[in-house]
């Protein structure tokens, strides 16, 4: 389990693609530069999608990702606003 400090959390559980990314993008824009958003999703595809998004998006960095086993598998992403 990754322990990355974060400033805000986005609950994207149950949201279908592309909503987790769409909401994450909007929420990161509301953070101060240097702050970190933690996104919790139930969409398995979000792992690769957040990686791909981080590659093309300007001004964000994907600090880490986690998979948490439970009654429902959770996919967690840490996104930092760079600029």
């Amino acid at each position, binding site marked *: 389990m990754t322990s990355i400090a974060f400033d805000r959390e986005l609950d994207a559980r149950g949201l279908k*693609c592309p909503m987790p*990314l769409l909401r994450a993008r909007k929420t990161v824009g509301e953070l101060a530069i240097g702050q970190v958003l933690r996104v919790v999703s139930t969409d398995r*595809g979000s792992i690769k999608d957040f990686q791909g998004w981080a590659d093309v998006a300007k001004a964000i960095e994907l600090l880490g990702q986690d998979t948490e086993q439970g009654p429902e598998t959770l996919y967690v992403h840490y996104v930092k606003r760079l600029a």
Partner: protein
Amino acid sequence: MDIGKASGSEWSIQESRDRLNRAEDFFVLDVRNRDEFDAWRLEGRAVPPTLNVPYFEMLEEGGEDDFVDSVVAYAGKALLPRLPSDLPILAVCAKGDTSAFVAEGLRRMGFEAFNLRGGMQAWGEHYEVRSVVSEPDLSVQQVSRPARGCLSYVVASGDEAVVVDPLRHVDRYIDLCGQEELGITAVIDTHAHADHLSGGLELASRAGSPYFLHPYDAVHPIDLVPARIRFRHLADGDRIAVGTTALEVLHIPGHTLGNIALLLAGRYLLAGDSIFIDSISRPDLGGRAEAWSRLHYESLGRLLELPDDVLVLPGHFSRAGEAGDDGAFRASLGSLRQRNEGLRMAAEPAETFSAYIQASLPDFPERYVDIKRVNAGLLEVDEDRAIELELGKNLCAMAAAAAREDARSEGRLA
């Protein structure tokens, strides 16, 4: 959220397949990430021209709340010269949600655009049934899962059915046998599969019938630990009755140690993973390519002794073009002796065959070790992991890698 879900603005998998098989022209805009796009594609007898643009690239073009706005902005800026104005465009994604927005955006721009309902997940779960043997008291139906290139069989005589190599969505077989009022009397796996999750145990348990496997395949070849499953032992020469006829077990070690083929009524060879249409199975998935190549050579030699008019019904295909006009995969042994490269090599001296195998082995997919663990009852997986393990086409054939290379050079894959 229901954008593009209206009837008429989306195509089902079956509808898309029908259009491909009729060679109707359309264009695919696939918005999945590159890894998933590389792993597998919607395909039929024709392969449509395709452009891969991951949806998160479109996301970077404005539209904070409405993804359709982003699609329109991105397409206007970067896609217009790359999209055909005179062809229908099918938008494709992983589950059919994001692509609905993409199709909506394209329609707003004046394109004739449709969404692939259920996306590639539905494609992965799509099955097709074709009759390959139809006699007064004997029928064989080929149940294919085209996304994975897997073929399974329902052999029926009288009111009895034996299911061979069932894939994991076992409802398909239960429904099929139910519709035709067939009772499933046996379920057989021709070997412990490495490329896909077997439906054998579950189907047998739900049908209340025995599950058959050769005992040599009840040891995980990499872990060297015994399987934790209940099964009845198959041996060379066994006959599994079905109605008025029977399936004869031919033990043909090579692809696996417990690999079998089934000779039905003396003239139909359910070949499992031995002889395919374009190719032969690979002998290296147990991690002992050299030793198993020799077994494979002897086993293929045994199958080559069967008469020319024996109809081969394979366990896999690598490309849709291997099928006949009716979409079914089958060929006489006589015709395969001529056109199947691996089979021609199996008729050469043993050293030549071994050299051919060593020179043309495809990559060993790492996840195959876990798939065999699941099939042996040594590992449990949830649906997400099952989908992940089964992503993409099988790589059980010697020619599969070569076929992928061809596809790549033709620009059909990214």
